[in-house]
């Protein structure tokens, strides 16, 4: 009798195991068809206050330790930034003149403003990281006009990520530094095309750059306009060029101009007519 009930229990466990395995496979298939969009939206709605607190505490703690680790580096960077700031001030003055001139010509020719884009300001409600793949959740979704593929920027036009999933009230954003991030870029003023991929330690790698193109340290990279992403958004600055005489392409290490770390809110570019 006891043996029979044990066997029955064993059979029940095997049945449950197989049933759950089947459900797991079903979930994998279902997730391709957006079966989990609604449950995810509800889950984010419920847990976002808690996860926001944890994300905030996590990034603050990490910043605290990073400060001590990079103390020496920060001093050097500070000096370098002071110099760069002086250069930028003089460049800004020149650019202001150009903007005024451009605006005057535009009015004279009665031309439309090219930056006809809808921007959505969104708050970062939580951050998640699994196996070094960071994503952050913003509090705007399909209902607010946020859709998959749209650019997420830091004011005024510094690209920090791309919307990878849009739910009713929330959207997941993949930062440029995420190893799964991949966007097409151009070297500003040189029009050299390439692909930017995320790497460790907040560094990006520019790939698929033909060997005959002249890349140099300090070159600015901007996003290349595609079906999903708007163009001319600042991405990063070339820090190191990696040439390989035997290869067809060269690579470059790129420092992003901004990251999502420590940010509370971001801007989503919902549509643009570049």
């Amino acid at each position, binding site marked *: 009798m006891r043996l029979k009930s044990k066997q029955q229990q064993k059979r029940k466990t095997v049945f449950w195991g197989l049933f759950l395995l089947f459900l797991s496979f079903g979930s994998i298939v279902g997730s391709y068809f957006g079966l989990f969009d609604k449950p995810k939206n509800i889950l984010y709605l419920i847990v976002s206050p808690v*996860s926001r607190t944890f994300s905030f505490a996590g990034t603050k703690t990490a910043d605290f*330790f990073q400060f001590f680790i990079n103390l020496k580096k920060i001093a050097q960077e500070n000096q370098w930034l002071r110099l760069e700031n002086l250069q930028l001030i003089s460049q800004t003055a020149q650019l202001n003149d150009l903007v005024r001139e451009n605006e005057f010509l535009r009015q004279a020719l009665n031309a439309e403003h090219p930056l006809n884009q809808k921007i959505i300001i969104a708050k970062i409600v939580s951050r998640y990281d*699994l196996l070094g*793949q960071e994503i952050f959740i913003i509090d705007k979704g399909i209902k607010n006009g946020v859709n998959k593929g749209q650019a997420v920027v830091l004011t005024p036009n510094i690209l920090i990520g791309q919307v990878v*999933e849009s739910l009713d009230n929330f959207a997941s954003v993949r930062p440029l530094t995420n190893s799964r991030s991949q966007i097409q870029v151009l070297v500003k003023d040189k029009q050299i095309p390439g692909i930017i991929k995320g790497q460790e330690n907040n560094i990006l790698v520019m790939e698929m750059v033909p060997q005959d193109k002249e890349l140099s340290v300090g070159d600015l990279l901007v996003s290349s306009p595609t079906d999903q992403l708007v163009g001319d958004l600042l991405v990063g600055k070339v820090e190191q060029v990696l040439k390989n005489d035997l290869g067809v392409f060269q690579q470059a290490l790129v420092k992003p101009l901004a990251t999502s770390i420590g940010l509370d809110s971001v801007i989503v570019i919902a549509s643009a007519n570049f």
Partner: protein
Amino acid sequence: MNIAICVLIIIFLLIFQLSFLSFVLPFYLVPNIILSILICSLLFTNQIKIVLIYGFFAGILLDMFSGNIVGFSALSFLLIIFLLAFLKRKLAIKSGLNAFWLFLIIASLLYDLLIYVAIKIYPAISSIHWSMHLGIAMFGGILANLIFGSLIYVLWRKMAVNV
């Protein structure tokens, strides 16, 4: 323990792992807390069915939070629980800290192996740097799981949680 409370604890631990520990520690030193919880419940309860259900839901929630393909972690957890339950029965392993460590090492290796296989089949499923630093990730993952897992084990024993 009430199922609702268990689900809440799992959600809380997942958020703690994905939103706090992931930002404080390097990615290869972030423990898989759910794995430790599942092993504790497998060792101290004989209700494999319940452990399988918790493993499934924890996996689904983990994937929903992390933006992965939903179902992958659930499948991994189920396979791990199946194997460990089989080992426990065949080798007549008694519950204790040594058994916990042994199971945790096996589970960590198996979980990493499943991710590695998944990356090979479908590269977009997981991190590029994880696959580049497989050794570091595996060693770091096991070490982190052992440290944090032992803490969970002690807490589990103290609280005498009856899942």
